[in-house]
């Protein structure tokens, strides 16, 4: 095809035709007419595609289009709201006493909470060989030994497929898989704490595994006391105590259904050695299925032909109508037939291909920020070039918090006595977070007044008046370091920022940081090491001041307040805790234990305010900010709205294929004059070059030429 295009270009040039030339720089393969394809990128290979094992944003981009947990987030509404995905309605929650009698939530006898789920009938899995059956109703692919499965060398050798209806036992099977110690579910500690019977199930599985180490175990034969099937489409989950955040996990792929047939299929002898496993070949009921998984080049998702009825939302938040986000209200999903993700490790080619129209969306790196965006007194907007191309800019504050923290175990900056507190408060005043955002994030962020980001209950916009440097110096003096020197020894106060080694951008940031501390006469020493050493320092409590961040698992304040919860300390937990400051205030801890399981209410808000006041006084973090995402979409991309929590949004997006084709053609006309010039230059050089050769050959020896 490329050759034909080149010939066409050559003919057009020679004929001097004035019509548009064919495009030569398309990096995508031949497209099927009438098929809507979205082109995107991935920069790092997925680590796991098993929904129980992965806890990685990079993996979620793919598997969240394939797997369907019971709930999902509403695409358009803000604050984030949950809604049923495969259920007929939201799960019914009942509170039980020790004998199983239904109680009220507030009752002191409440010991358990029981969730009842009802699945919609008729939801079918994607076509998959695990479901292929012969005329007798037996599975087509059954291998008793590795020798029998030798004929299968790759997944594409499975030519027959089938499907199956989603039923309650599929969800139950997945919950039982959580107890399998070989899978190492990331939040095992949490689910085993709450789901009744899960710890006992793990013990049972370990016992059987010890006896039959190489045999596949059918988890349907094991009892899980806290999860019961009530019918073909109904099941219940019983939790210990009250755990309102459990509903958010029900929207996470950990709770996606996995039928026993799939587990048995992938555990057949000889398949794991060929990487034919659930970790490489996901299978779900979602709008897409993975049809190509070359992690070195391209991952392709294609429409699941068996996808159930699902429709574009008919309501959103204020401004969605004006932004054209409700034009497709009520229409059947998904709109896009195929999504192609190409591996791109360098930023420049991605940006260039976006400008050429070959990628439909792009982020904005610092290098291309000025090219894409204008920052004026009125605010941030697209550059003229982007506006001319019809590019759309979507901005959203991420449910995330990045902060500069103090190690509270350090004997200089840590601790709870008055002087240590004042030292931290002085630094917090001197550190200009807004300036940091302006310089190093191109203004993409908002100064945080607390760990809780926008869109999450308990969020507080910055309102407190910032204190002056004079106040900071006064606090520093009260802390025992007047003028930045130890009042007793006279030595200058030198603090250490522990960070990872980086490039020139880090050098600029470090210089800026040193200036911040210099405002109050403190010397800041940058201790940059590689990532592994830095992690080791954090785990052992050897860091003094550091940068860290947290992205929400779910939109609940507990998911951010726990970053300062004492028992979550990184050092105390052997490195697995999220409290990187090792902050441990008993009063805060007590309030956290109260607030973590409360529903959103004025009472909860009041407790959160008290907790934030404690944190403000103790200042375990010098400063924090909530990052803002800028995403650019080409003019033909429709229905795109960034969602801070959910990644399962490809089904809502749409593209105007005809517009894309027109724009690509317009933007990528080959420029041929350089080739013409090169040909002319070669010609111009050849003629005198030949003459020079002739002169050299006919030159007489005796005329003083000694070569």
């Amino acid at each position, binding site marked *: *095809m*490329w*050759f034909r295009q080149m010939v066409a270009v050559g003919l057009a040039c020679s004929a001097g035709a004035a019509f548009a030339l064919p*495009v*030569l*720089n398309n*990096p*995508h*393969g*031949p497209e099927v007419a009438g098929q809507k394809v979205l082109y995107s990128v991935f920069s790092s*290979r997925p*680590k796991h595609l098993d929904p129980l094992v992965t*806890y*990685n944003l*990079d993996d979620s981009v793919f598997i969240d289009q394939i797997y369907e947990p019971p709930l999902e987030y509403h695409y358009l509404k803000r604050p984030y709201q949950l809604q049923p995905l495969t259920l007929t309605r939201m799960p019914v929650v009942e509170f039980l006493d020790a004998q199983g009698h239904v109680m009220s939530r507030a009752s002191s006898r409440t010991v358990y909470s029981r969730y009842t789920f009802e699945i919609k009938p008729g939801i079918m899995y994607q076509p998959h060989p695990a479901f292929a059956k012969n005329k007798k109703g037996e599975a087509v692919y059954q291998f008793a030994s590795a020798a029998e499965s030798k004929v299968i060398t790759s997944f594409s050798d499975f030519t027959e497929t089938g499907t199956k209806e989603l039923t309650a036992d599929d969800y139950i099977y997945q919950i039982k898989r959580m107890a399998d*110690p*070989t899978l*190492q579910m*990331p*939040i*095992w*500690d949490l689910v085993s704490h709450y789901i009744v019977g899960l710890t006992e199930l793990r013990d049972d599985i370990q016992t059987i595994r010890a006896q039959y180490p190489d045999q596949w175990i059918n988890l349907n034969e094991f009892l899980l006391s806290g999860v019961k099937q009530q019918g073909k489409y109904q099941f219940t989950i019983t939790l210990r105590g009250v755990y309102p955040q459990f509903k958010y996990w029900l929207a996470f792929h950990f709770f996606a259904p996995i039928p026993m047939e799939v587990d048995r299929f992938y555990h057949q002898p000889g398949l794991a050695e060929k*990487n034919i496993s659930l*970790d*490489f070949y996901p299978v779900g009921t979602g709008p897409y299925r993975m049809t190509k998984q*070359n*992690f*070195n*080049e391209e991952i392709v998702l294609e429409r699941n032909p068996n996808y159930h009825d699902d429709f574009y939302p008919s309501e959103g938040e204020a401004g969605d109508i004006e932004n054209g986000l409700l034009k497709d209200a009520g229409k059947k999903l998904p709109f896009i037939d195929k999504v192609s993700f*190409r*591996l*791109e*490790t*360098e930023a*420049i*080619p991605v940006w*260039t*291909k976006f*400008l*050429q129209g070959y990628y439909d969306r792009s982020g904005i790196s610092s290098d291309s920020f000025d090219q894409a965006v204008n920052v004026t007194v009125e605010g941030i907007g697209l550059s003229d070039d982007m506006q001319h191309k019809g590019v759309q800019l979507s901005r959203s504050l991420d449910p995330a918090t990045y902060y500069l923290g103090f190690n509270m175990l350090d004997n200089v900056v840590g601790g709870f006595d008055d002087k240590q507190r004042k030292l931290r408060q002085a630094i917090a005043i001197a550190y200009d977070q807004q300036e940091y955002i302006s310089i190093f994030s191109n203004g993409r962020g908002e100064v945080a007044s607390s760990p809780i980001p926008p869109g999450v209950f308990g969020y507080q916009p910055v309102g407190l008046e910032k204190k002056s440097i004079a106040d900071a110096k006064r606090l520093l003096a009260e802390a025992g370091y007047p003028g930045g020197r130890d009042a007793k020894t006279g030595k200058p106060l030198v603090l250490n920022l522990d960070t990872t080694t980086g490039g020139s951008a880090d050098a600029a940031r470090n210089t800026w940081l040193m200036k911040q501390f210099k405002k109050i006469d403190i010397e800041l020493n940058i201790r940059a090491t*590689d990532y*592994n050493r830095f*992690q*080791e320092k954090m785990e052992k409590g050897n860091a003094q001041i550091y940068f860290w961040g947290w992205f929400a698992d779910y939109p609940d304040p507990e998911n951010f307040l726990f970053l300062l919860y004492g028992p979550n300390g990184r050092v105390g937990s*052997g*490195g*697995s805790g*999220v409290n990187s400051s090792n902050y441990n205030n008993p009063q805060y801890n007590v309030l956290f234990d109260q607030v973590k399981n409360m529903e959103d209410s004025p009472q909860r808000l009041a407790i959160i305010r008290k907790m934030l006041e404690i944190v403000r006084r103790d200042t375990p973090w010098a400063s924090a900010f909530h990052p803002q995402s800028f995403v650019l979409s080409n003019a033909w991309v429709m229905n795109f709205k960034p969602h801070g929590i959910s990644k399962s949004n490809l089904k809502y997006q749409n593209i105007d294929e005809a517009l894309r084709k027109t724009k690509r053609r317009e933007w*990528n*006309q*080959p*420029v*041929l004059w*350089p*080739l013409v010039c090169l040909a002319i230059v070669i010609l111009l050089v050849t003629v005198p070059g030949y003459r*020079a*050769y002739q002169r*050299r*050959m006919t030159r007489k020896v005796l005329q003083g030429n000694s*070569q």
Partner: protein
Amino acid sequence: MIAYIIRRIFYAFPILLGVNIITFALFFMVNSPDQMAQVQLGIKHITPEAIAHWKTQHGYNKPLFVNAAEDSKGYFTDTIFFDKSVRLFIFDFGKSDQGRSIAQDISERMLPSLAVQIPVFVIGLSVNIVVALMVVMFRASVFELSAMVICVAMFSVSGVFYIIGGQFLFGKLWNLVPISGYLHGINALPFLILPVIVGVISGIGGGTRLYRMIFMNEIHRDYIRTARAKGVSELGVLFKHLLPNAMIPILTGIVVVIPSLFMGSLLMESFFGIPGLGSFTIDGIQAQDFSIVRSMVFLGSVLYIIGLILTDISYTLVDPRVRLS
């Protein structure tokens, strides 16, 4: 010659063992199995149990070099080094830390590397030799001086400049070729044009200077004067007499490179998005995947040794005076 080749192959074993030991030592000097587990697990809540499980699954739960807890047999064999590195000698590359077959990845990625490297090599060599011969033909002239100055300038410029400049001009400004990417089969051709052009142009400076120096050593020989005296044209003198006699030093540099073509170019493949062995190695280093790193270092060493042996054999073909003993 057969005895010579067999002897060289035996000499290769201690060399490869040394390469393995050094690679192993250097890698684990900066990475510990715990840290590798954290990078591979890549999850928010990494528990000590998850790290221990990963290490057990991937064979990193043993001591590095020696196992003091084992008896004499297991002292050396029940270690990470024995498991991961000694098996390479039977070309058992095993699986990467992400669970993919390394041998399969190598076989898949070799072809894209060769698709770029072979044209760069053949075309680059041809262009360098022709330009060097032209410079020799116009020696002691303004042309030679200018050419050498340009060659030094081109040689001094970083390869990354050529890559980015080529992408900017040909891919972005003139829209003549895709800026990066790769498709298989015949569809790969548009994606190879720019990397090949960049590879050839970036090598002209150094290659021309090297071959010019080799040719200048030969141009004053008696057989050249004799050829001229017989009335052979200057082009005939250069291509039919000078070039064949300059082949030995040229072969030194060429044949040893040929096996390394399989390994690809780290920079080119990263920037042009070519899924070859060069980008495979870079990705393995960035992911702290020891299985990939040790496989690629071992494979590179084997190919280099093969290149050296082939160089010695090629001497006997171009110079009948040379005997291997």
